């Protein structure tokens, strides 16, 4: 199943990455990378383990700087606004660019409180508004029907796939513009994975989604655009159908045909 949504007309990029490099101490992990991410589409980052795709993803909402010794150069712009620079608050950036992690990480709170957390810390106290946005976020992540009768149960009692969808709902509740997903289905069984992929397709109608995946079939299924990373470099970036059928770089071709990786 393909997305069938690869527009022909050029859309202004949601995220513009220029000359981005990320280093840990003296060791360069990524870059320099330049890349435009199109709004309201799904962009997949693929490549073998350790190629820097997760590091690149985490530098899009400034999660890397939490790691001691991490240094970032170059620029990232969100709708033309720089996200790196003096006086720019990473907290404000992370409200606009949400993230879902590889391992589902719900808080040990109730299902309701998990989704409401981002709203409460954002200063929303009106219980009716919280209620409405919790329901909307759970509905968007296709979890509402499964949990609507047990919103006050602990989130830790949900299955792995449900927990991951809860994490997506939690990220959506604060209404970010961009959703970063770091191998969101790698720890899930095929059925739960199918759920998540379907969800990503639906989300791309309203959100800009950037997803890191190990699984090339997954990239082909969900992504409109795909970027291939290798050894910290961006090797090739193109529309998914082009990259998978007519890759212009031989390393891309070797990787997607399974010759290495």
């Amino acid at each position: 199943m393909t997305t069938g949504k690869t527009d022909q007309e050029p859309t202004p990029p949601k995220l513009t990455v220029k000359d981005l490099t990320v280093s840990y101490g003296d060791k360069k992990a990524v870059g320099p990378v330049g890349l435009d991410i199109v709004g309201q589409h799904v962009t997949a980052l693929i490549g073998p383990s350790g190629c820097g795709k997760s590091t690149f993803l985490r530098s899009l909402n400034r999660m890397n700087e939490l790691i001691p010794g991490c240094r970032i150069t170059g620029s990232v712009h969100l709708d033309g606004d720089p996200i790196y620079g003096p006086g720019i608050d990473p907290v404000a950036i992370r409200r606009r660019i949400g993230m879902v992690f590889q391992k589902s990480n719900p808080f040990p709170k109730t299902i309701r409180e998990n989704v409401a957390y981002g709203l409460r810390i954002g200063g929303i106290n009106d219980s009716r508004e919280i209620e409405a946005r919790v329901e909307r976020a759970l509905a968007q992540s296709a979890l509402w029907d499964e949990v609507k009768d047990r919103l006050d149960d602990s989130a830790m009692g949900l299955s792995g796939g449900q927990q991951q969808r809860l994490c997506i709902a939690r990220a959506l509740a604060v209404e970010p513009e961009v959703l970063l997903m770091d191998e969101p289905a790698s720890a899930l069984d095929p059925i739960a994975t199918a759920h998540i992929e379907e969800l990503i397709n639906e989300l791309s109608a309203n959100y800009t989604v950037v997803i890191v995946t190990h699984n090339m079939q997954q990239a082909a299924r969900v992504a409109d655009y795909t970027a291939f990373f290798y050894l910290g470099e961006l090797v090739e970036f193109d529309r998914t159908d082009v990259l998978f059928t007519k890759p212009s770089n031989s390393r891309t071709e070797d990787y997607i045909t399974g010759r290495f990786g």
Partner: protein
Amino acid sequence: MSVASVAPDRETIARHTARRTRRNVIADGALAVATGATLLLVLTILVVILFDVIRHGTPHLSWAFLSEAPRDGMTAGGIFPAIVGMVEMVLLMTLAGVPIGVATAIYLHEYASPVSPVTRAIRLAVANLAGVPSIVFGLFGLGFFVQFLGAGIDKAFFGSDKVFGQPALIWAALTMAVLTLPVVIVATEEALRAVPRELREASLALGATKFQTVFNVVVPQASSGILTGTILAVSRGAGEVAPILFTGAAYFLPLLPKSLSSQFMSPSYHVYVLSTQSPDVDATKPILYATVLVLLALTFTLNIAAVVVRARMRRRNAGGAG
């Protein structure tokens, strides 16, 4: 196949395996015997102590013993003032020491740069504080709290009267708080360290500030560990004698402490007094045993409380279903 010619034949493999297996069986057996023997030794010591204390202590235990003050040069009566003194001292010490200890640990673990010389100096100080003998804490309490702080307060507010410039409940509690501080700090830091990075990242990725993340996610998640460590620290402090010897514990008081500047009786000090200062050893002996029994029961209660708290918090965090 050529593999057969290079590989050792079946019989050789079997022989080697057998020898290795034999050696493993002997090593396993020896280890099991050695560790089992140490376990037995520890249990025996505990059982002997408990058995002795319970056998000699229970006959003298009664409601009167728990609710009366000592009489007749401590050869009769109960230990009520000592129980009350211990409870008050423990409460004050917890109130004074635990918030400071927890706050220090949160600062050290969440905010301080791990490589800065100041952080290292604080950590070194905490580690050294934990190794200081408790009698030294007692002398410190006498010198700092009683003679410096207490006398200073007297000079400033009470003229020539001695109110705070003598051993008192508050000084004993503060000395004890200093003694338990490193235990609280280390336990709290341990609990904070156990909070998975994923939870912090989840909170930060939702646009939470560091402060919001620490107080809404990290500390609640660590609370069972913090509480357990705190209760264990308190129960350790509750049984100490040396730090309160010079700072507030009284040899004998028929009345309960009236204010923070009163002296107080403590079961642990009472045990020391009964066993060394009694005018009539035979009359004191059953009282001594019963006092030890009560002291043990109080500390065990605190330890069991720690275990229960931990189990309940764990269950809550695991959320019932797996």
